[in-house]
Protein backbone atom coordinates (compact mmCIF):
# COMPACT_ATOMS: atom_id res chain seq x y z
CA UNK A 1 0.00 0.00 0.00
CA UNK A 2 1.36 3.42 -0.98
CA UNK A 3 1.69 6.00 1.73
CA UNK A 4 3.07 9.44 2.55
CA UNK A 5 4.81 8.41 5.74
CA UNK A 6 8.31 9.17 4.50
CA UNK A 7 7.25 12.63 3.29
CA UNK A 8 5.46 13.44 6.54
CA UNK A 9 8.43 12.25 8.53
CA UNK A 10 10.84 14.30 6.43
CA UNK A 11 8.69 17.41 6.90
CA UNK A 12 9.28 17.11 10.63
CA UNK A 13 12.93 16.19 10.20
CA UNK A 14 12.42 12.95 12.10
CA UNK A 15 14.59 9.90 11.68
CA UNK A 16 12.95 6.49 11.33
CA UNK A 17 14.07 5.76 14.89
CA UNK A 18 12.37 8.92 16.14
CA UNK A 19 9.10 8.06 14.41
CA UNK A 20 9.35 4.45 15.59
CA UNK A 21 9.75 5.62 19.19
CA UNK A 22 6.76 7.94 18.91
CA UNK A 23 4.64 5.12 17.49
CA UNK A 24 6.01 2.53 19.91
CA UNK A 25 7.11 0.17 17.13
CA UNK A 26 10.53 -0.95 15.90
CA UNK A 27 12.50 1.09 13.38
CA UNK A 28 12.23 -1.90 11.04
CA UNK A 29 8.44 -1.59 11.16
CA UNK A 30 8.61 2.07 10.12
CA UNK A 31 10.96 1.18 7.29
CA UNK A 32 8.72 -1.69 6.14
CA UNK A 33 5.65 0.57 6.14
CA UNK A 34 7.45 3.36 4.27
CA UNK A 35 8.66 0.98 1.59
CA UNK A 36 5.23 -0.62 1.26
CA UNK A 37 6.40 -4.02 2.45
CA UNK A 38 4.14 -4.02 5.49
CA UNK A 39 0.60 -2.72 5.77
CA UNK A 40 0.01 -1.44 9.29
CA UNK A 41 -2.85 -2.76 11.37
CA UNK A 42 -5.84 -0.49 11.83
CA UNK A 43 -4.81 0.51 15.38
CA UNK A 44 -1.33 1.43 14.16
CA UNK A 45 -2.76 3.31 11.18
CA UNK A 46 -4.88 5.33 13.61
CA UNK A 47 -1.83 6.04 15.77
CA UNK A 48 0.05 7.25 12.70
CA UNK A 49 -2.86 9.43 11.61
CA UNK A 50 -3.20 10.97 15.07
CA UNK A 51 0.53 11.63 15.29
CA UNK A 52 0.51 13.52 12.01
CA UNK A 53 -2.90 15.08 12.72
CA UNK A 54 -4.26 13.70 9.47
CA UNK A 55 -6.88 11.24 8.34
CA UNK A 56 -5.83 7.68 7.53
CA UNK A 57 -6.87 8.08 3.89
CA UNK A 58 -4.69 11.21 3.62
CA UNK A 59 -1.65 9.15 4.54
CA UNK A 60 -2.41 5.74 3.03
CA UNK A 61 -3.59 5.03 -0.49
CA UNK A 62 -4.91 1.57 -1.31
CA UNK A 63 -5.23 2.50 -4.99
CA UNK A 64 -9.00 2.01 -5.00
CA UNK A 65 -10.44 5.40 -5.97
CA UNK A 66 -13.86 4.06 -6.95
CA UNK A 67 -15.17 3.65 -3.42
Amino acid at each position, binding site marked *: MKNRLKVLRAERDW*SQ*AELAGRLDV*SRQAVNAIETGKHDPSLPLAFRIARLFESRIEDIFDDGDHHA
Partner: protein
Amino acid sequence: MMETIMHSEGQNPSPGEARTRRRIRKQWIYLGLAALLGGLLGGVIAGSDSGGGSLFLGDYADLRIDPVLALVLAGGFLFAFVLLPLWGFTQIDELQREQNLLAFTGGCLAVLGCFPIWAMLHAGGHAGPPDAFGLYLVAFGAMAASFLFVKLRS
Protein backbone atom coordinates in the same frame (compact mmCIF):
# COMPACT_ATOMS: atom_id res chain seq x y z
CA MET B 1 20.99 4.05 4.51
CA MET B 2 21.49 7.24 6.43
CA GLU B 3 17.88 7.08 7.52
CA THR B 4 18.54 3.84 9.27
CA ILE B 5 21.02 5.57 11.51
CA MET B 6 19.70 7.50 14.45
CA HIS B 7 19.95 11.26 14.19
CA SER B 8 21.44 12.13 17.49
CA GLU B 9 24.24 9.96 18.68
CA GLY B 10 24.95 12.57 21.35
CA GLN B 11 23.98 12.53 24.98
CA ASN B 12 20.47 13.92 24.55
CA PRO B 13 18.53 11.88 22.04
CA SER B 14 15.03 13.05 21.20
CA PRO B 15 12.16 11.29 23.03
CA GLY B 16 11.33 8.98 20.12
CA GLU B 17 14.93 7.97 19.57
CA ALA B 18 15.42 7.41 23.29
CA ARG B 19 12.42 5.10 23.31
CA THR B 20 13.74 3.23 20.27
CA ARG B 21 17.10 2.78 22.00
CA ARG B 22 15.33 1.39 25.06
CA ARG B 23 13.44 -1.03 22.82
CA ILE B 24 16.68 -2.22 21.19
CA ARG B 25 18.38 -2.56 24.58
CA LYS B 26 15.45 -4.56 25.92
CA GLN B 27 15.60 -6.84 22.88
CA TRP B 28 19.30 -7.53 23.44
CA ILE B 29 18.66 -8.26 27.11
CA TYR B 30 15.95 -10.73 26.10
CA LEU B 31 18.27 -12.45 23.60
CA GLY B 32 21.11 -12.51 26.14
CA LEU B 33 18.82 -13.99 28.78
CA ALA B 34 17.59 -16.66 26.35
CA ALA B 35 21.16 -17.55 25.35
CA LEU B 36 22.25 -17.65 28.98
CA LEU B 37 19.34 -19.89 29.90
CA GLY B 38 20.07 -22.20 26.96
CA GLY B 39 23.73 -22.42 27.93
CA LEU B 40 22.81 -23.06 31.55
CA LEU B 41 20.39 -25.87 30.68
CA GLY B 42 22.84 -27.43 28.25
CA GLY B 43 25.66 -27.17 30.77
CA VAL B 44 23.63 -28.77 33.55
CA ILE B 45 22.58 -31.63 31.28
CA ALA B 46 26.13 -32.22 30.11
CA GLY B 47 27.42 -32.09 33.66
CA SER B 48 24.80 -34.30 35.26
CA ASP B 49 24.26 -37.04 32.67
CA SER B 50 25.40 -40.32 34.15
CA GLY B 51 24.47 -42.31 31.04
CA GLY B 52 26.11 -42.32 27.64
CA GLY B 53 23.51 -40.22 25.85
CA SER B 54 23.42 -36.71 24.52
CA LEU B 55 20.34 -34.57 24.07
CA PHE B 56 22.00 -32.46 21.41
CA LEU B 57 23.10 -35.40 19.28
CA GLY B 58 19.69 -37.04 19.39
CA ASP B 59 20.82 -39.87 21.65
CA TYR B 60 18.34 -39.02 24.39
CA ALA B 61 17.43 -42.65 25.08
CA ASP B 62 20.68 -43.17 26.96
CA LEU B 63 20.46 -39.98 29.02
CA ARG B 64 20.46 -40.68 32.76
CA ILE B 65 19.72 -37.75 35.05
CA ASP B 66 18.70 -37.58 38.69
CA PRO B 67 14.84 -37.66 38.82
CA VAL B 68 14.52 -34.39 40.77
CA LEU B 69 17.05 -32.61 38.58
CA ALA B 70 15.24 -33.97 35.52
CA LEU B 71 12.03 -32.30 36.75
CA VAL B 72 13.88 -29.04 37.30
CA LEU B 73 15.37 -29.25 33.81
CA ALA B 74 11.97 -30.04 32.29
CA GLY B 75 10.63 -26.93 34.04
CA GLY B 76 13.58 -24.98 32.69
CA PHE B 77 12.80 -26.07 29.14
CA LEU B 78 9.13 -25.22 29.66
CA PHE B 79 10.19 -21.73 30.68
CA ALA B 80 12.81 -21.37 27.94
CA PHE B 81 10.85 -22.80 25.02
CA VAL B 82 7.25 -21.91 25.89
CA LEU B 83 6.81 -19.25 28.56
CA LEU B 84 9.69 -16.97 27.58
CA PRO B 85 8.75 -16.92 23.87
CA LEU B 86 5.09 -16.34 24.77
CA TRP B 87 6.07 -13.38 26.92
CA GLY B 88 8.37 -12.24 24.11
CA PHE B 89 5.35 -12.12 21.80
CA THR B 90 3.79 -9.49 24.04
CA GLN B 91 6.92 -7.33 23.85
CA ILE B 92 7.38 -7.09 20.09
CA ASP B 93 5.57 -4.95 17.55
CA GLU B 94 3.12 -6.13 14.90
CA LEU B 95 5.74 -6.53 12.14
CA GLN B 96 7.97 -8.69 14.35
CA ARG B 97 4.93 -10.66 15.49
CA GLU B 98 3.96 -11.29 11.88
CA GLN B 99 7.51 -12.41 11.06
CA ASN B 100 7.59 -14.74 14.06
CA LEU B 101 4.19 -16.22 13.24
CA LEU B 102 5.30 -16.89 9.66
CA ALA B 103 8.43 -18.56 10.99
CA PHE B 104 6.36 -20.75 13.31
CA THR B 105 4.09 -21.59 10.38
CA GLY B 106 7.13 -22.66 8.36
CA GLY B 107 8.29 -24.92 11.19
CA CYS B 108 4.83 -26.41 11.68
CA LEU B 109 4.30 -27.08 7.96
CA ALA B 110 7.71 -28.71 7.76
CA VAL B 111 6.78 -31.20 10.48
CA LEU B 112 3.34 -31.87 9.00
CA GLY B 113 4.90 -32.58 5.63
CA CYS B 114 8.12 -34.18 6.77
CA PHE B 115 6.67 -37.05 8.80
CA PRO B 116 4.62 -38.71 6.01
CA ILE B 117 7.36 -38.02 3.45
CA TRP B 118 9.98 -39.56 5.74
CA ALA B 119 7.67 -42.52 6.48
CA MET B 120 7.18 -43.16 2.75
CA LEU B 121 10.91 -42.93 2.11
CA HIS B 122 11.45 -45.40 4.95
CA ALA B 123 8.76 -47.73 3.57
CA GLY B 124 10.56 -47.72 0.24
CA GLY B 125 13.89 -48.44 1.84
CA HIS B 126 15.35 -45.02 1.05
CA ALA B 127 15.76 -43.81 4.64
CA GLY B 128 15.70 -44.93 8.23
CA PRO B 129 12.46 -44.76 10.24
CA PRO B 130 11.10 -41.32 11.24
CA ASP B 131 12.78 -40.18 14.39
CA ALA B 132 11.54 -37.68 17.01
CA PHE B 133 14.84 -35.82 17.22
CA GLY B 134 15.10 -35.66 13.44
CA LEU B 135 11.62 -34.14 13.24
CA TYR B 136 12.56 -31.68 15.97
CA LEU B 137 15.59 -30.61 13.95
CA VAL B 138 13.46 -30.28 10.81
CA ALA B 139 11.00 -28.06 12.72
CA PHE B 140 13.80 -25.94 14.14
CA GLY B 141 15.63 -25.67 10.81
CA ALA B 142 12.49 -24.83 8.86
CA MET B 143 11.50 -22.24 11.44
CA ALA B 144 14.93 -20.59 11.29
CA ALA B 145 14.97 -20.67 7.48
CA SER B 146 11.44 -19.23 7.29
CA PHE B 147 12.37 -16.48 9.72
CA LEU B 148 15.46 -15.55 7.71
CA PHE B 149 13.46 -15.59 4.47
CA VAL B 150 10.77 -13.32 5.92
CA LYS B 151 13.35 -11.02 7.51
CA LEU B 152 15.28 -10.62 4.27
CA ARG B 153 12.10 -9.78 2.36
CA SER B 154 11.04 -6.98 4.69
